[in-house]
């Protein structure tokens, strides 16, 4: 047993964990901000929305569908030139962020739009009858009433991003995926392979658990 553990370099493992968490949560942060904004725009401009605008809606809709359909690993590769300009390098954990964000923004935007569309139309009509502006509707109705769904959306997006960081790791951005691939798979160290996988699974479970918990906590329905 102790021989098994001896196969793991703990400093390396801790460093990889740190990198995975960094990549996942930094990109989640930007993805939530960007995705919320795009989601709001989609919601407002959709046909029968509060500010229907066929041109803006079509453009955003196509953009979202397009970037959601490009496999992440390919997206990351075709983004290398842009990443180089933005980050200055295509290697390391920071270099993974632009591709991670760009893949998660459309996903989160779509989930945001769905969450807003689930909000009872009657409550929106009610606040409009009170003389609410579009900002009031967003801030006082849509965001609070959709909050449990948005929290679940954050959890799902976060889990996706943890998965993507592993793929990013395989092409040089560090993290647990990189460890599993480079040291576990390529150097045939099964202990590292399984242990880093187990850590990734644990992170995913934890995100889901916290997401469910918070979502239930704020749901007063």
């Amino acid at each position: 047993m102790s021989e098994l553990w001896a196969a793991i370099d703990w400093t390396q493992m801790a460093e990889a964990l740190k990198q995975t968490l960094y990549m996942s949560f930094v990109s989640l942060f930007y993805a939530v901000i960007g995705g919320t904004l795009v989601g709001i725009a989609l919601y407002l401009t959709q046909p029968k929305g509060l500010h229907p605008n066929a041109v803006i809606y079509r453009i955003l809709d196509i953009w979202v569908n397009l970037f959601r359909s490009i496999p992440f690993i390919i997206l990351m590769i075709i983004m290398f030139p842009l990443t180089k300009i933005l980050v200055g390098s295509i290697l390391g954990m920071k270099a993974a962020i632009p591709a991670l964000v760009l893949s998660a923004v459309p996903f989160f935007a779509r989930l945001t739009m769905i969450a807003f569309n689930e909000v009872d139309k009657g409550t929106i009509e009610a606040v409009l009858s009170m003389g609410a502006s579009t900002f009031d509707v967003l801030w006082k109705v849509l965001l609070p009433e959709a909050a449990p769904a948005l929290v679940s959306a954050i959890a799902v997006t976060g889990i996706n991003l943890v998965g993507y960081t592993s793929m990013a790791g395989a092409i040089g951005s560090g993290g647990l995926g990189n460890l599993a691939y480079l040291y576990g798979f390529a150097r045939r160290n099964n202990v590292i392979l399984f242990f880093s996988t187990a850590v990734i699974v644990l992170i995913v479970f934890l995100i889901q658990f916290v997401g469910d918990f918070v979502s239930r906590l704020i749901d007063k329905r």
Partner: protein
Amino acid sequence: MSLIQLESITKTFKAKPVNIEALRGVSIQVEAGQIYGIVGYSGAGKSTLIRIINQLETQSSGAVILNGVNLSSLSKPQLRKKRQKIGMIFQHFNLLWSRTIAKNIELPMEIAGVAREIRKKKVRELIDLVGLSGREKDYPSTLSGGQKQRVGIARALANQPDILLCDEATSALDPKTTVSILELLQKINQELGLTIILITHQMEVIQKICHRVAIMSDGQIVEEGEVSEVFSTPKHSITKGFVAGVMGVEVEEELKERLLSLYPDAHLLKLNFAGAITDEPILANVIQKSKAKASIIHASITHVSGKPIGFLIVAIDKKHASGQKEFVSLLKKEGVKVEVIS
């Protein structure tokens, strides 16, 4: 000038294969302080009409004039300001589940930019007014339907509106709760002098609290008038159907036919009572004086806005028809409308 004037309102919804004409030239006037009811079957256009009053829907043509101001002439911010003075309550209450009851009532004041302390004070007053003291911190999901509508009413009153729009406000409630909500609306009308426009498919609601009523069918108003007048002498067939429904009687034509076949050997007279005269023992007096052998074979009396309204059908045997002429003229002298059926 009337507080609310709707002038030749039309509304057409674009649809395929044919456009839907929801409203075809509706004009009504509502005086300040009135409870004005609009009744009609579903699809009559009443939801669209009530939403045009606060411009949640915009009319295809026609004008909405509130207090002399044509709403079409307002800019969007001006219209929002105007809406703050038009409260609205809904069939399904439309409360925000994410906010406590107190916070729900506070919402319109937040939108209107009322200062925090004033908001809190007003919330307390309103919670008392609608009888929900102690429930401030609860969430709507813990309330019954009737209580939710009370929160809806408190919320609609938060910005001291001039007008309250009620969109089928009691249709999702049981009969007992309906009565208590109607009493609350009546109290608000009397104590705050608030003008109320309500739409409903329940004639009982009109009977219970409205002063005036408009009957809608197929995007048009087919009859309009004081409630007691409409109830005692309905003219349009749709109105007759509604009135018959609430009086618990058959539609007049069917009733007459049935009675005629039951009493082939008698003259049938329909006596219409309306208003205060029904307090007098008219019938007893008249029968005594005329010596007509009249027997009551059908009766329906109800109360509308506190006044008794209704009719009797009496049969006088054709063999003993001697007193009938005097019977009729004495009744007419007392202000009873007499209609000879056979």
